[in-house]
């Protein structure tokens, strides 16, 4: 049992477990201590010194985030010493920060701005350091813009990139006044191992790291009468968008979101969930084909385990770090890109539109999707399949710009043809969701029966453990799949690239013998994506996940192959999964990239 200790904070007595930091103890006592470099997702740095507090008997102030409580500690978070020092530290940070707030993308959602506002640093007469530094803005990445003049060196991005993602595209370099956050040899983010996942953006307290935004482009398209603008929305957007628009965390806003998109003037509002269901059909079939090729035909060219390919951050990561293992990736495009390819073919044909006039926009919880849409191979429709990718945050900005009172909107439905979806598609937004959706369909395809889990909820692949494992034994399959009788289908789910690396390492070392693995670049899956509302934390992600699973439970259809529009597209257009047309439009190949 952990020892309990008694301390007092501003005269309030609290009992905490030994080892609790002053910051956590204060929160327990209902005392808020401001922080900047602290983030619940990350290790303690103790760098910014904003959280300093006074401890009776100690000459110096202690960083609340980094100092463990000791028995009978008397802590003061608001003494004059603390207030003066804290104000001066904020002022120092402002002096090295390009505080041109009105022209900043993060204006209104900046932790430094909030501190400056809370502490009313009205007389800022320290010398402004920014003009003396030779800052450049790195805007070469299609996903991320890095502006060092706004960086306050809290290192949250560096810790994110290393601890959550294991990518280490960002690092701290130099020392003293020259110390800065940068990449290998200060190359543009686009030229290094960056996965474009955008977690650095989600964890940046200021506007030093933001997404490259395409809001103006989309407004232009919408107002261009010669263009037919279609929009698709990813599953995780509907459980995040509300946070940006004044609703609480984990509130589902699917119907309002559709209504808002229609009010914004999109010509067709459809759903990435539709192509998520399609992905399951294609990917599920691909898995079965691979199983057959390996187990029956012993084809050495076909690789297992098969890895999912929905997460473009994960794709770029594996291309950089494990270029020899690209054969393991499912050839399926992500739902976004499947949608894009179909919008300018299937949809265009059905609606009798010239694909040339179609502008395809997607709303994604993700910044890597911006990179993915820009990949040169994503032109299978004969055009760029997805023209603009907006993050959840960018959509919220458009909604505010348009003066839409989001709360007052009545729910609306997605447009037909590519707007129908099942619960299986919705859960793509949570870690384990693709796996669960695939298993629901694959198991039924093979056995003719429902997956053997209560109410179709495959709970072992749910939850926030970094790596999850599940296995399903296939018994009494349909004749066609007789070779799978008795096979124990071994699956794994990894989210956060640092966990993806663990799984990849176990595959390479031969320790693991999975058949099928779901990889998601971001912690929690897409609901914790780099394009989702800021802030993020384990608690927030849990709430969003709960909303996702509630959405699934509320759907009348919960298996991808039941989606009537899916049945229709195969009947009218694609033929069958893995058909020639599918291969052309819905599948892709990968590019080996360099780790160094």
């Amino acid at each position, binding site marked *: 049992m952990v020892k309990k200790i008694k301390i007092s904070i501003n005269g309030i007595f609290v009992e905490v477990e030994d080892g609790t930091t002053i910051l956590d103890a204060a929160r327990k006592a209902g005392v808020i201590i401001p922080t900047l470099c602290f983030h619940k997702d990350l290790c*303690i*740095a*103790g*760098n*910014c*010194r*904003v959280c*300093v507090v006074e401890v009776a008997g100690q000459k*110096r*102030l202690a*960083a609340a985030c*980094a*100092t*463990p409580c000791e028995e009978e500690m008397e802590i003061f978070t608001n003494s004059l*010493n603390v207030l*003066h*020092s804290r104000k*001066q*530290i904020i002022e*120092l*940070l402002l*002096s*090295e920060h390009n505080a041109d707030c009105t022209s900043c993308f993060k204006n209104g959602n900046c932790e430094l701005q909030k501190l400056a506002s809370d502490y009313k640093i009205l007389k800022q*007469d*320290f*010398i402004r*350091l920014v003009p*003396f530094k030779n800052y450049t803005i790195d805007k070469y990445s299609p996903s991320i813009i890095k502006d060092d003049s706004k960086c*306050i*060196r809290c*290192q949250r991005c560096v810790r994110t990139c290393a601890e959550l993602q294991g990518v280490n595209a960002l690092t*701290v370099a*130099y*020392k*003293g*006044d*020259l*110390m800065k956050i940068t990449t290998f040899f200060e190359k543009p983010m686009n030229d290094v191992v960056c996965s474009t996942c955008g977690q650095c953006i989600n964890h940046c307290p200021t506007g030093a790291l933001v997404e490259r935004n395409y809001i103006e482009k989309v407004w232009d398209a919408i107002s261009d009468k010669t263009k037919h603008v279609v929009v698709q929305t990813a599953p995780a957007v509907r459980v995040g968008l509300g946070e940006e628009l004044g609703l609480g965390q984990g509130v589902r806003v699917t119907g309002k979101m559709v209504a808002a998109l229609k009010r914004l003037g999109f010509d067709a509002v459809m759903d990435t969930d539709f192509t998520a269901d399609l992905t399951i059909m294609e990917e599920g079939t691909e898995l079965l084909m691979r199983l057959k090729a390996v187990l029956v035909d012993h084809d050495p060219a076909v690789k297992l385990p098969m890895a999912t390919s929905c997460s473009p951050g994960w794709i770029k990561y594996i291309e950089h770090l494990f270029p020899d293992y690209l054969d393991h990736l499912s050839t399926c495009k992500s739902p976004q890109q499947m949608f894009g390819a179909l919008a300018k073919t299937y949809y265009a044909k059905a609606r009798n539109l010239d694909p040339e006039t179609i502008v395809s926009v997607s709303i994604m919880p993700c910044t890597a999707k911006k990179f993915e849409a820009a990949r040169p191979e994503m032109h299978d429709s004969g055009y760029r399949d997805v023209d603009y990718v907006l993050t959840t945050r960018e959509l919220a900005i458009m909604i505010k710009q348009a003066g839409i009172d989001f709360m007052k909107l009545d729910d609306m439905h997605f447009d037909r043809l590519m707007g129908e979806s099942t619960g299986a598609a919705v859960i793509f937004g949570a870690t384990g969701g693709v796996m669960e959706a695939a298993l629901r369909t694959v198991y039924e395809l093979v056995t003719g029966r429902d997956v053997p889990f209560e109410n179709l909820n495959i709970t072992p692949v749910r939850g926030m453990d970094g790596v999850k494992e599940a296995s399903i034994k296939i018994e009494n399959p349909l004749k066609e799949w007789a070779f799978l009788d008795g096979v124990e289908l071994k699956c794994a789910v990894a989210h956060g690239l640092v966990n993806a690396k663990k799984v990849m390492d176990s595959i390479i070392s031969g320790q693991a013998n999975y058949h099928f693995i779901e990889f998601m670049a971001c912690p929690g899956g897409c609901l914790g994506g780099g394009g989702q509302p800021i802030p993020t934390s384990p608690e927030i992600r849990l709430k969003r996940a709960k909303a996702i699973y509630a959405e699934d439970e509320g759907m009348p259809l919960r298996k991808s192959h039941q989606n009537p529009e899916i049945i229709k597209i195969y009947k009218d257009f694609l033929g069958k999964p893995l058909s020639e047309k599918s291969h052309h439009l819905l599948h892709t190949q990968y590019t080996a990239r360099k780790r160094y």
Partner: protein
Amino acid sequence: MTTSYQLKRADFIFKYENDWEKILSKCISRTPQELINELISSELKGRGGAGFPTGLKWKLAAEVVDATKYVICNADEGEPGTFKDREILSMVPYKVLTGMAVCGYVIGAKEGYIYLRGEYFFLQPELNKAIREFEYYCKGINLDFTIRIFMGSGAYICGEETALFESMEGKRGEPRNKPPFPSSYGYMGKPTVINNVETLAHTYTIFKYGAKRFYDLGVQYSRGSKLFSVSGDTPKPGIYELELGMSLADFVDEFGDGDTKAVQVGGASGFLVPRKRFDETAIGFQGKLTGISLPTGGSMMLFNSSRSMFNVLDNYLEFFREESCGQCTPCRVGCQQLLMGIKAVKRGEKNAKYLDKLLRLTETMKLTAKCGLGQSVANSFSSIVENFREEMIY
């Protein structure tokens, strides 16, 4: 009891003694507890500048149960105006090596490292020779202890003990949060004793001559002798072993050029004492002697009346602006603001009152910086600006 604050020379450190084998053998025939008690009763305090009681440091590390522990000799002598450690390592390396091995025996460490600053690269061949001979002897007396040199690469901050560990672990030399302290979580996360070169050399004196001999030198709270690196406007720059507790006036009598305007005690991170305070200032550790008492790593820089205190401060601040590790706000931004601030005042771009804002900033830096360096960089600023304000302004 010694109460006088006169300058008294001592001669222990550099005294040539070729009996280290005997001292080492004698030490390891005693119990670790005896050796710790000996050190504690000598009241030896760390000679790097911070002045932590050495015996207590060893005791704390000895009490932690762990199969792997380390002894590290901090030879990252980077404080401007300090050069004694190099002399110790080149003149009497065996005293340091013996101190390390005894420490290893006391705390239960089998590995020792000397973290040698990159600037002292040239010491390596001779020092390695000494280490090999020393290790050979250890083997002979069945003392399982090895010593390796770890080279620094030009970073002042690595003299801070936790930054030094980070550096040895192949990382940027950025100080860690404390607690945990090195005695429980040091190099590679293992219990570690890290001592300054001179401190280890003093342990040799103590183990050879006994704690009393050492204790009898110096004054209350500041026992023993200490090496002083004397530089600047002095006719006799060099290294001197003096008893602690002398008054600065005596020191200036001995080493000044007759026109001493101020003395910087403790290097760039130390304090500047103006002439009018020489009498009331003593050199030692905590505890009031006469007026103020200044701890020091032994750097004594003298300035005569031809020197501009603005230039002196400007030089120090430029040093810190470059040598701050840059991780914590008060030190990284504070150093830049102090340096640019005094220049702006000098140029008339800021008015003289701005110096008060900067003085307030030094208070914040002292209170909030993450490590000892960040907390002390502002010392020179406040002591110079407070005493020579007019020189800052025009």
